[in-house]
């Protein structure tokens, strides 16, 4: 991140801390797509994603007086997003065992030769989303964040307060589970 952007970020945070409502609005505008995108990819329900994204900004608003600026603002935001997503007990996406998933999904595999290629891709993406929804909450969040433009392993490790190696291992495990869940479709 270039020094000018860091300075602009600090100025914005200071304005928010001094109670400038316009600054808070700027902050929401600046980070809404990041926050909403991350959450919508994790919970996969737009209405709920919006509610949780608003909750993130509410917590930011409450926490700004205590934000010392030691970490980057985006890292702090990832941490709040992670807390909000993981604390969301009412998540409709339940975690099921792989055996149960296999029993539940006794559907015929996609036959690209028979179906239109575009439709097959669409269905594959749909199954990917459903498979992601069946991952444990922390894996869902990692998969959502890692493939978000500009989010690095280091940012995730710092935000989740986990060692870098643990983040990598968890992400690999999440992908292993996805690969097993989509074994037929990926052939």
């Amino acid at each position, binding site marked *: 991140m270039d020094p000018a952007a860091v300075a602009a970020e600090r100025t914005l945070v200071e304005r928010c801390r001094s109670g400038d409502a316009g600054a808070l609005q700027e902050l929401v505008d600046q980070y809404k797509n990041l926050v909403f995108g991350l959450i919508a990819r994790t919970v996969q329900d737009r209405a709920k994603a919006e509610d949780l994204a608003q909750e993130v900004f509410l917590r930011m608003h409450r926490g700004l007086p205590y934000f010392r600026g030691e970490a980057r603002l985006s890292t702090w935001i990832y941490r709040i997003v992670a807390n909000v997503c993981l604390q969301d007990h009412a998540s409709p996406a339940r975690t099921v065992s792989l055996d149960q998933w296999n029993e539940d999904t006794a559907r015929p595999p996609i036959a690209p030769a028979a179906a239109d290629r575009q439709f097959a891709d669409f269905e594959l993406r749909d199954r990917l989303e459903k498979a992601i929804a069946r991952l444990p909450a922390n894996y869902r969040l990692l998969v959502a964040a890692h493939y978000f433009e500009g989010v690095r392993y280091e940012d995730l490790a710092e935000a989740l307060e986990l060692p870098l190696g643990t983040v990598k291992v968890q*992400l*690999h495990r999440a992908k292993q589970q996805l*690969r097993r869940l989509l074994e037929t479709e990926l052939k």
Partner: protein
Amino acid sequence: MYCDEALDAVEAVAAGELAIEGRLAEHYAGCRDCAAALAQARRLEQLLHQRPVPHAPAQFTARTMARVRRARWRSEQVFDLGFNVAIAIVILALLVGAWALLNRTGLTSVSNDAVNLLAAATVAFAQRVAPALPLYLGATALVVTALGIWWWAERDVGI
């Protein structure tokens, strides 16, 4: 190299974090199952990169700001309530203290006449007010209903 080791490395290889070299390359070249797993992992990696990025709804900022304002207003209400309760407690403590002081100094016997006078005035006032009591009760019910509607309208509906 065993298949277990090659399969463990599949995700890292597909993500481009691990180069296929030496024994690993030989294994993938010679083992159909591991090569298939690698192909699947690469396809999955591609799909994950292609996942659409959802954008926040158009009115998101306005709705978030409204929620922030509502939360701030609510916390101010709680603070005000706490402040009022604290003031009431202080006033009560002062009254009890004054009463205790009067009792200790024997001044209460002097003030008994004043208390009797006040009680008589209160009884007379109650007798005058009694016929209009239904009116006052009706007005109170109206105020309570209005406050109830206001509370219902302002409660958190979880946008």
